[in-house]
């Protein structure tokens, strides 16, 4: 399909959907006449991006385009947030995760698609210069969209909304368009899920850190600076659970013997 012909119909990016809220806060989506054209154009954009027929001046702009095309990034807020955090990718099970701050300071996370991962592997400077990346992306998209369109990225977002409206379940679509945003589980919760244990909390006092480190050092490396493992030995003895005593009483006893406030 010739994108250029269809895009002539639009002089400005028109939202492809109308959103109405009911009394219980649900969003009802109504498609406008242009939605089908927008969705088709977005599919063409995906195809061209995946087969490499779109030319980008910088790898970072290709990375940004992949985020929009394959990772459900469909608002400027999410795009700038994800580009700012592009250097903090991490692995969770088999997924490469990109975490960024969504609307209302919610945690937003995407498992990156293989296309986006490939684009990220192309070397580019980190942290990304977001404004420069957006400028280059706009230049690349100008080849796709009608020159009359005020902002090619905005037009691409409108196309993405039309496409995602039929390809995502309702809650996820409402999240991606920030109509009803969700919040991702914090990484600390993921860590708890992974370890099946509660997380340790540390006092910020530097002195305690040092003392604790020295004690552990003495325990694990008897040939080290502090060749005395007695502290940890004592703690281990004190913290040995007694089955005959109730848990809370046993914990109180441990704290008392460690000279800590109960």
């Amino acid at each position, binding site marked *: 399909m010739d994108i250029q012909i269809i895009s002539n*119909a639009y002089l400005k990016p028109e939202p492809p959907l109308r959103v109405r809220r009911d009394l219980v806060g649900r*969003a*009802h*989506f109504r*498609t406008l006449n242009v939605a089908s054209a927008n*969705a088709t154009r977005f599919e063409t954009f995906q195809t061209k991006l995946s087969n490499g027929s779109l030319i980008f001046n910088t790898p970072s702009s290709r990375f940004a385009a992949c985020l929009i095309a394959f990772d459900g990034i469909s608002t400027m807020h999410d795009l700038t947030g994800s580009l700012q955090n592009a250097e903090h990718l991490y692995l969770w099970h088999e997924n490469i995760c990109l975490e960024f701050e969504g609307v209302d300071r919610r945690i937003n996370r995407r498992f990156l698609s293989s296309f986006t991962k490939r684009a990220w592997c192309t070397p580019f400077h980190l942290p990304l210069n977001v404004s420069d990346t957006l400028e280059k992306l706009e230049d690349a998209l100008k080849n796709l969209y009608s020159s009359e369109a005020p902002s090619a990225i905005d037009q691409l977002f409108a196309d993405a909304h039309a496409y995602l409206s039929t390809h995502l379940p309702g809650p996820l679509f409402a999240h991606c368009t920030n*109509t009803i945003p969700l919040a991702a589980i914090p990484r600390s919760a993921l860590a708890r899920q992974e370890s099946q244990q509660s997380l340790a909390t540390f006092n910020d006092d530097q002195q305690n850190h040092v003392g604790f480190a020295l004690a552990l050092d003495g325990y694990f490396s008897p040939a080290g600076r502090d060749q005395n493992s007695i502290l940890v030995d004592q703690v281990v003895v004190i913290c040995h659970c007694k089955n005959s005593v109730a848990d809370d009483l046993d914990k109180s006893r441990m704290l008392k013997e460690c000279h800590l406030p109960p």
Partner: protein
Amino acid sequence: MAIISPVALFSHNDAPKSALTKLMSSIDPQYQLTLKKLIHVLHAPIDSPRVTDVLKGATLCIDAFGKTLAAPNADFKKIWLDIQSVSNLLVDVSDELEQPLQRRLTKYAPWAVCMTVAQKQIPKVFLEAAGVEIALSFATGKPFPNAYANNLRRELSNEAALDTSNSQETTSSNQYTFSKHFEKALRNAQLIFEDASARSSLLVPPTQESFESRARHYLLRNQTYAQPNHRRAVLDHHCQSKSQIIQSAFELRSKAENNDDTAIITILALCIGISPALVMQMPLALHAADDWLLVIDVEAGLIKTNIDSLFPQSATPTTDSLSLHHSANKIVIKPIPAFVQCLLTKRLSKTPSAQSIGQLLPAAITSGKIFTSDQSEQGISPSTRRFLNSAAPFAIQLGTNRLVAATITNDFSVIPGSKPYYSLVAREEIWAGCSSLFDSLGWGAPMPIEPGLPVGSLVVATQHSVKSLFEWMCKEVSNSMPGRRYSFLSLVEHHNMFAKYCASLTILSLGSRQAKQLRFNATGLHEEFAFTSVFDKRTGQFPGALPVPINAVLSEQLRFWRAHCSALDSRLEKIGLDENTQLRSHIRQILNCSNVHLFFGISTNGKPFPLGSSDLTEWWPDRLRLNANFSRSFWQHELHLYGLKSSIIDLFVRHQLIGAESHTSTTHFALTNYFNQIVQAQEKILSDMNITSLSGLAKK
């Protein structure tokens, strides 16, 4: 009766001082309390202007109201006498202004009304309306409602109302803004001021509502006001849990087999879909009224429901087009469990004169609060009401199609309200649904099936009729194809037929509704699109366009249509038609995907016009003429037979079920998954019917 206490009287902030003090001193102390009450009731201004007139007006009002009472009691007579006496004692104490309440009329409306009443002759209904409120206020201690008084005052200021010629006529009170409150106040006042003995003799005994009327209201109420969770077929706290339902059903059967009338009634109530109290009144087949809604045939073990009155004004085929549609009727026939039929037959043999189920099962308790199971340890008590409420959600959760589940439980709240107007349910499906339900409840087999017509819409076109129609259209288009030597007229004739064929196929594929002008435009409908937005009826809470998938046959047809338009433009150019003409300009806009009508005909003067449904139906021959909405009922039936879920078909025909809408932030599926299923089914059915795309003047 609560008469206002003297203490309450002086809580009034605007207690009158000057004029009132003079008046108080001029009357006997025994009437002073009555005067104070009146001042409180009528919300007197601080200067209490024209108090004599106001009291005179109040007396007239009370008089008028007193005449409406059939038998005034002692309380009313006391009030009337008190006001009469005070009014007679008062004399004008000073000269007053002509319009003492100017710019204060709204604030002191009750006072103003009484003043007007005393000064002018006004219709009787106004006097009664004011009098009833004064009397009530006297009795209850509440002041005259200011809004009501303002309504009275505004109506009084109307010239027509003050027309003395009309004042003598009997005026209906329904035309006034205060009428509603007046009627309510009148009812209350009659309760307070009429003798109870006299009132009881005047009361008309309430008419007994028929079973048909009560059952109809019951079913319609359930359908209209069902909770969204119920519509979603969720077994929530208004229902029993699955294990409770099965346990209840088991215990009910045991009790029923031990001749417990209540258990039999509860089982029947679940099968019929109405409350136990209504089941008691349900007539046996031989004793049904002419306009019956629900009857039970005890010998055959069948329940019959006439859904015509539940879904009125459904389309009916003309006598000429009967053969084009599936034969169907409006009577749902469904079985009861065989063991219940045995029990009822025994009862009927004992009481052959019985006319209703209640007479067969006289000892049944019809309360919805009694438990259906003795094991009530769970959090939710297993009441009869909950058990009956669970029928449709439970049947749906068993895997029964929603439409069938609604039919076998008479709970139409689990399907969109318009679905019964379009769809058909076969007798075999009803029996299969009942078998599955009874089996899972442990009620054994239903009564044997009695073959019969499907139930539902009477205008579901058959595959054969649709196929014949499209064969006829193909032939007409092929016959009109211009040769190498063509003229403008031959081009126009062929174009018009081809445009109508394309429009017909589009209507068929998209299930669109009848329209004066087909609302498909070149921007939204294109061969490359996966879906198009259709908005052909303002319906639901948020009317608007909804996406409908485009199948491969339609997609190919749209490609042919654009190729045809391009070829037509070339040929028109060769004929010598100027490119600035309206016709060629319209064609160019279509090729440029502009926002113009996609399907257009060409009139005899060479101008384009948008096609409408009537253009198509008038073109179709009489023997094959279907209604313009035929595709909606056609797909409802065919996609149902193909095996698609009821909710997917609703998505296609754009029917919304409150709480389970398919285009919201709570929709649990991606639309494309359902679109693929719809398109796949459509292509298979169209292929079976040999309906394909057809080219016009060019293929490319």
